[in-house]
């Protein structure tokens, strides 16, 4: 057998984006269109082809056996399309890929799980869907159940499971798949910290066993921990392939992880917000770029752009920061400060930007949600959007990163530690 596990040559995937008035084409339309086609050609000439977009183009790379390759890029960069092609879910439109070995894909855990079936039944079903033989599942059954930690509920329909239990069971099955090549997409984005730790542990186990892994993630620290090399995708093209730390650094600092912006259209806003009208909310990195991923070691700028169509007395515009478990990390308003409060006791009509800085070395890594609130204390809430924007904090370079562990806690402050050696006490001892 050769050295190569995956060879991708000039791979491309084209999607058709038709002029879509309806959600889906119907047979009725197709028949009427076919019937009217001759008339239309007579009138307007032969219609042009559907518009197409390349979700992926000119992608070439090789992965050696035993290599763990990371894939990063913002949403829509083509990561999922690449994995879908390699796991044979969809066909490429051009180029080719050669795969040497059995591919197992974890595009989403729990594929084919049926809520009416019990945990036990779903293990068999899901295992078969993922390509395991019945004998193989039987052999590993005990191990899977133990790994999932839901022994007591194994004969309960999974519709009665909590979402955490469901995930643990689903991942347990997937983790016991033993393909030569494993394709993983974002499984770590879900679940609690404990579960994520378990997943990461299993992933590094797989990697250490000498299996080939293609790993797509938004979690930069997981990419750094698990992969040696990483490719960066952007707009369907491969920007670079480099050792993971270089690739991650490039990705984070180039502002590719963009989309850290929420815009409100006029029709999104309820009448009761009047005269407050939110326009946009953005996250910026220190270079002033609007980004989706920020580094915990750098200050984060949050800005809220809005209009007042008439003056408001005592208006305060503020943000909530919530973590992915729904816990509020902090709340802050633009007139919290006494001086600002005096100065803006009446806010005149006009176009405004309220801006603040979340200091560096404050947030732990993970995804955060920003909420927006515009209100007058005890009188009126003009606007409230608990889930306006979300962004990722990446802790690359944060204190304590020399240890590959998940740091507990909401925040990750850089504390000024002193270590003093009491010479006298040592002498006494």
């Amino acid at each position, binding site marked *: 057998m050769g050295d190569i596990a995956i060879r991708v040559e000039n791979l491309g995937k084209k999607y058709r984006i038709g002029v879509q008035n309806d959600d889906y084409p*119907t*047979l009725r339309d197709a028949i009427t269109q076919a019937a009217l086609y001759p008339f239309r050609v007579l009138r307007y000439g032969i219609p042009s082809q559907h518009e197409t977009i390349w979700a992926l183009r000119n992608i070439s790379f090789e992965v050696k056996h035993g290599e763990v390759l990371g894939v990063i890029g913002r949403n829509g960069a083509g990561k999922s399309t690449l994995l*879908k092609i390699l796991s044979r879910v969809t066909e*490429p439109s051009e180029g*080719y890929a050669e795969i040497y070995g059995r*591919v197992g894909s974890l*595009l989403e855990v729990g594929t084919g799980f049926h809520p009416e079936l019990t945990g036990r039944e779903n293990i068999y*079903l899901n295992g078969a869907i993922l390509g395991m033989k019945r004998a193989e599942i039987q052999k590993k059954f005990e191990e899977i159940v133990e790994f999932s930690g839901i022994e007591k509920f194994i004969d309960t329909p999974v519709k009665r499971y909590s979402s955490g239990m469901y995930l643990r069971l689903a991942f347990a099955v997937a983790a016991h798949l033993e393909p030569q090549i494993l394709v993983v997409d974002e499984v770590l984005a879900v679940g609690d910290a404990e579960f994520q730790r378990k997943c990461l542990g299993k992933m590094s186990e797989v990697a250490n066993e*000498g299996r080939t892994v293609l790993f797509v993630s938004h979690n930069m620290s997981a990419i750094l921990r698990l992969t040696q090399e990483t490719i960066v995708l952007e707009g369907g093209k491969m920007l670079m392939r480099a050792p993971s730390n270089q690739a991650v650094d490039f990705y984070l600092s180039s502002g590719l992880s963009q989309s850290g912006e929420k815009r409100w259209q006029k029709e999104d806003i309820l009448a009761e917000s009047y005269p407050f009208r939110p326009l946009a909310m953005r996250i910026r990195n220190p270079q002033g770029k609007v980004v989706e991923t920020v580094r915990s070691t750098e200050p984060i700028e949050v800005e809220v752009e809005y209009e007042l169509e008439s003056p408001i007395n005592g208006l305060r515009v503020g943000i909530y920061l919530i973590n992915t478990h729904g816990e509020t990390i902090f709340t802050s308003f633009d007139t919290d400060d006494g001086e600002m409060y005096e100065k803006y006791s009446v806010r005149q009509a006009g176009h405004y930007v309220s801006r603040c800085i979340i200091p560096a070395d404050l947030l732990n890594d993970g995804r955060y949600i920003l909420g927006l609130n515009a209100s007058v204390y005890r009188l009126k809430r003009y606007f409230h959007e608990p889930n306006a924007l979300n962004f990722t904090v990446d802790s690359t370079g944060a204190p304590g990163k020399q240890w590959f562990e998940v740091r507990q806690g909401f925040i990750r402050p850089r504390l000024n530690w002193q270590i003093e050696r009491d010479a006298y006490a040592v002498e006494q001892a």
Partner: protein
Amino acid sequence: MAQQTSLASKTSSEVVLLRPSRGWIPLNLHELWVFRELIYFLTWRDIKVRYKQTVLGAAWAILQPLINMVVLSFIFGNLAKLSTDNIPRPIFTFTALLPWGLFSKALADAGRSMLANRSMITKVYFPRLIIPLSSVLGGLVDFVIQFAILLGMMLYYRITPTSALWSLPFFVLLSLATAFGFGLWLSALNVLYRDVGYILPFLTQIWMLVTPVAYSAKVVPAEYQFLYALNPMVGVVEGFRWALLGARPPDALTLAVSTVISVIVLISGMYYFRRMERTFADMV
């Protein structure tokens, strides 16, 4: 270590080349054999879920044809007064409802199957033919239960099956093949055009009327018999009555036409399905 070597040995045998396909694709039926356990598990899932989800469970498989039998016997016997070749009307109708039920359920399930399983289709690779195939097979359990009822009815009416009983598996197969063939066309079309899902119940309703379920094929005038035979279910239903109840045997020409139609639809359905398969994951 042992694990590593076993993995290495698996590797050497498998090289998969992924590239754009053009035009008609080979059926790759041997792949269905490789994935036979998945066919089994999906069929098993469909059956299990159906019996768990409905209040009546397995009783539904019995009640549905029985109610149908009563209604159809009443309408066609007492109101329309169509001949049954001297066979008691209830069993005359029920014997036909058996293959008809198998067929119509298989057709409807297969037609909807691709959309019903879209979450699997967009995430994991397996031969897509498995999806409509396992929905067709899922109806067999209902069929077996109903067959037991039929045997009970035959005891009651003191009807002994004829020596033509040997041909019954052929008729079962013919109805499954017909359902699978049309199901393939419909399921692939349903991915492309969502309104196929609405046409399905309508289609089965009409189809039942042009199948001799509640009446004897004899009532169709001779000059239309050939046209009538184009519906493969005519041969199947007549065959069931012949094998079990000793009704007059189906016309050999009718049977031949039914079989040929069914095979043509099956093979063309498989090729059409395979041709559409490459776009399923992008469209469902």
